[in-house]
C-alpha cells in the first residue's frame, strides 16, 4: 500500500510532539528524526504514539517496526523521520 506525505497530518503530529515533549513546534521539520534530532525518549515516544493512535483511530505497530529495524530488514529512518512517520500514519489510516 502506498501513501503520500500529508501536511495536515504532519502539523497534527508536530503539535502532539510539542505538547508532550520539550521540543518547540518550530524546530520540527519533515526531515527531523524523532529520536536523533528531537531527542524524544522512549516514555515520551509512548505518550506520543498513544495520542497519535487516538487522534487518527489507528494502532501504530511500533513493536513490529522495531523488530524490522533490529533485524536489519528496514531502516529506522523509514519510521522515525517525521516525513516517513507521516506516510506510515497515512498508510494505517487508509487501511483502517
Amino acid at each position, binding site marked *: 500500500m502506498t501513501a503520500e506525505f500529508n501536511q495536515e497530518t504532519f502539523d497534527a503530529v508536530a503539535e502532539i510532539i510539542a505538547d508532550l515533549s520539550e521540543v518547540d513546534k518550530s524546530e520540527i521539520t519533515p526531515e527531523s528524526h524523532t529520536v536523533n534530532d528531537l531527542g524524544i525518549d522512549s516514555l515520551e515516544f509512548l505518550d506520543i*504514539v498513544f495520542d497519535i493512535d487516538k487522534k487518527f483511530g489507528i494502532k501504530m*505497530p511500533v513493536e513490529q517496526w522495531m523488530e524490522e529495524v533490529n533485524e536489519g530488514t528496514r531502516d529506522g529512518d523509514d519510521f522515525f523521520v517525521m516525513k516517513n512517520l507521516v506516510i506510515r500514519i497515512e498508510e494505517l489510516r487508509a487501511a483502517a
Partner: protein
Amino acid sequence: MHIEYFQLVDRVETIDADREHVTCIATVPESSTIFEGHFPGHPLMPGTLLIEAMAQTSGYMLLSRFDFDRLPFLIQVARARIRTFVEPGTELVVKGALEHDGSGFAVTNGEILRGEERVADAELRFRTMPFPTDDLRDIVREYASRLGVSS
C-alpha cells in the same frame, strides 16, 4: 489482601467478554506492619498502595486479554486522585477499564469504590512485554487462576 507480599487483590469478580472491563474485590487487612508506621495509632491504607491495587486489577484484565502471553508493567500514573481515607478492614471494589490497547503498551482507567463512594481513581499506563521466563508465566497464571482469572 496480603500487603507484605504486594498481593493487593483478593479475587477477580468479573472480566467482560471483550476483556475491556474488570472488577476485583480487595479487603484491607485489620492489621499489618505497614500500619505501625502509617500512622502510629492512626492506621490508614497508604494512597500509593491504592494506586497499586488499581494497577494490579487492570493488570489481571490485561493478562487475560493477552492470554498470559505478555506481562504488563506499570510505567505511568496520570490524574491520580486519592479522595478519602481508607481504614483497616475496609472492603474495596476495584475496577479497571481499557482505554487503549496499543503496540507494546496499554492504557486503562482505574477506580476504587467503598460502597457507592469513590475512594480513588487514576489513568494507568502499562508497558506490555513477553514474560522474561516461562516459569514466571506459569506462576502468574496459576496465581491469577486462584483469584478467578480464566486463561
